[in-house]
């Protein structure tokens, strides 16, 4: 009794206090599983957000704004004009059915995107498949994977330029073919041609396809493959019904890498194409060199829109978030 009385006596304010606090606390606990205050999460995300804001969002916003400005030979003038965009598509309607500069450039870029995408996908898939299903031990897989990355220890440009002595008129390939007697005159189309550009792009960007596909493949439960075999599926059926559907996210991620990089690439196209093949990047560079920043900005925005549309299209095919 005494105890209860005491409990009761001292307990009264306690319970009333607890009653006052606990619903709030309970609510808070229900909303989040963590004891850390909400703002900590924002703080943790802040550095990256800040970097993004400073080096991505702001420059992009500036590019967008400037694309509506006016310009002279030596200055850019704040304004709101759409002439830069109409200049980008100058003559596109009038010159039909022949293509205007912008359409011709995008068509040429699209051609390279298609060639490079198909080639890197086939090669990338094959390499990843070999690494994943044919190489049996993990150390060997890692070792071979590292071998794939070795060329990437040197610079992009050097890997590209090293093709030139190979493919040139007096290059290794031509000299070998001539000495063997297969050809009489050097093959001109080996260098400074569509072929050279496609070759260099495929060489440079296949790894971007290998990595995500390999990553997706390694996650496939081997039991699934066994089950397919047990159920009587042929090798081809297993590939098309089990492996490919499961590595789809890897394929899409790899494709996004390759497609976006090739669309914006102008260095490879410039060097391997002998600057005779147009690319959007080169057009932008020329305009910037002549201080035509607004039209260069407009071109960049159009390029960005094209790339975003492509990615959007690809993501419509496969919902990466669901698959991951």
């Amino acid at each position, binding site marked *: 009794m005494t105890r209860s009385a005491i409990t009761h006596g001292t307990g009264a304010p306690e319970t009333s206090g607890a009653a006052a606090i606990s619903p709030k606390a309970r609510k808070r606990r229900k909303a989040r599983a963590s004891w850390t205050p909400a703002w900590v999460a924002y703080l943790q995300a802040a550095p990256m957000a800040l970097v993004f804001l400073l080096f991505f969002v702001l420059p992009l916003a500036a590019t967008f704004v400037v694309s509506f400005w006016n310009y*002279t*030979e030596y200055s850019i003038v704040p304004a709101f004009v759409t002439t830069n965009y109409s200049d980008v598509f100058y003559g596109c309607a009038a010159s039909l059915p022949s293509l205007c*500069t912008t359409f011709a450039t995008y068509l040429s870029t699209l051609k390279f995107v298609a060639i490079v995408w198909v080639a890197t996908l086939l090669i990338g898939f094959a390499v990843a498949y070999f690494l994943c299903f044919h190489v049996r031990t993990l150390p060997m897989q890692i070792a071979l994977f590292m071998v794939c990355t070795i060329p990437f220890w040197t610079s992009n440009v050097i890997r590209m330029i090293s093709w030139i002595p190979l493919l040139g008129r007096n290059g290794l390939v031509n000299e070998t073919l001539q000495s063997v007697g297969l050809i009489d005159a050097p093959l001109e189309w080996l260098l*400074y041609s569509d072929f050279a550009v496609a070759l260099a792009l495929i060489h440079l960007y296949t790894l971007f396809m290998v990595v995500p596909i390999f990553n997706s493949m390694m996650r496939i439960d081997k039991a699934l493959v066994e089950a397919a075999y047990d159920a009587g599926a042929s090798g081809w059926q297993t590939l098309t019904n089990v492996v490919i559907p499961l590595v789809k996210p890897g394929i899409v991620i790899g494709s996004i890498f390759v497609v976006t990089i090739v669309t914006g690439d102008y260095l490879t196209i410039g060097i391997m194409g*002998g600057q005779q093949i147009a690319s959007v990047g080169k*057009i932008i560079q*020329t*305009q910037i060199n*002549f*201080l035509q920043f607004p039209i260069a900005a407009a071109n960049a925005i159009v390029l960005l829109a094209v790339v975003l549309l492509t990615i959007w299209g690809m993501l419509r095919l496969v919902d990466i978030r669901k698959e991951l």
Partner: protein
Amino acid sequence: MTDKTTTPFSRRSLLKGGVAVAGLAATARFSSFPTPAIAQEPVTLRYLSTAVNQSPGIAAKASEDLGITIEYIAVTTDDVAKRVITQPNSFDLVDTEYFALPKLLPSGNIMGLDANRIKLADKIASVLRNGTIGGKKVGMDGTAPAETLYLPSEKATEFAGEETGFLTLIPTTYNADTLGIRPDLIDGEVTSWASLLDPKFKGKAAILNIPSIGIMDAAMAIEARGDMTYGDKGNMTREEIDKTIAALIEAKRAGQFRAFWTDFNESVNLMASGEVVIQSMWSPAITAVRTQGIECRYQPLAEGYRAWASGFGLPPAIGEREKDAAYEFINWFLSGWAGAHLAKQGYYTAVLDTTKEAMEPYEWAYWFEGKPAEQDIMSPGGQLLEKAGATRDGGSYEERMGKVACWNAVMDENIYMIRKWNEFIAA
């Protein structure tokens, strides 16, 4: 950085020295005051130009002779102009081409140099001052230095068009460009610019992908071929641009060009590897091919040369100390040693008399008089350029500069031209 830290320091010393505050406000008047505080630290001049013009030898010698530290900022031709316009505070001295002036001057980021402070201003080569050599007029198509050398006043944004007391740029180097060829891979002689578009060299020709210069080389070739004549190759009308680009597209589709180049080194590689046997080229590139032991000639052509000139300009934002140092450096530059140093790389120099004094007689005879070399010709770095007995392609100074047909230029229709050029690249 030195300049930024010293400026307030010297101002404060001046205040202590009892100089009126009114004088402080009018910073432009500073140079007339004798200021003992100024001599304490060596001045640094941030020297903006292309890498080709930035000889470490010149910086070392300037530091030795004048106590001025030269800090080179190396960028590409286009970037020099871009930087002058977008970052006028980032340099104290710019070495840029005259053809950039129609863009730079209206921006207000280049100020006139006072001829009274340049000792040898009236000794600058006549071809630059009034477009004559030995009294004979040279071609003035394009942005000729003679038309852009003078300003009516220090802060003017338009050219004077006649000799005045203010100069836009003090010439550093200039030269006459022509086609480079590989005589060992070519049958017969090349005598005309028309060869650049001659189907004989199908798949073995190259042109520069710097629109303003490339289109002039094309125009030289098209005019030489007899297809059309230009009013002013350096300032084409829209119709002329259309026709020129149409001719270029036709040649490109026929497979005339092996490649285009933008970087000096690309032209060296194209030529040295034999990918290209005839192309637009710059003089130091020819030298670079030759030092690899490969035959290469800077072929003089019947229609003449496309010339260019480069010179020192000052930004209006320059500090007083730096301005004094810049004038001192420019005077030193014209006084001989630097000129000789550059002339030994094949450039021509602003003041020929002082260059001659600073060179060995056999060097002067080879580089400027077109005579066979009495001794082996060495580069400033001590590399063998030519064996004794060789003569310079194109001959003497008078022969080469006297046959200038046009100058590197920026056209009035520049924006239109670049759009058409991009069309050519995309074709």
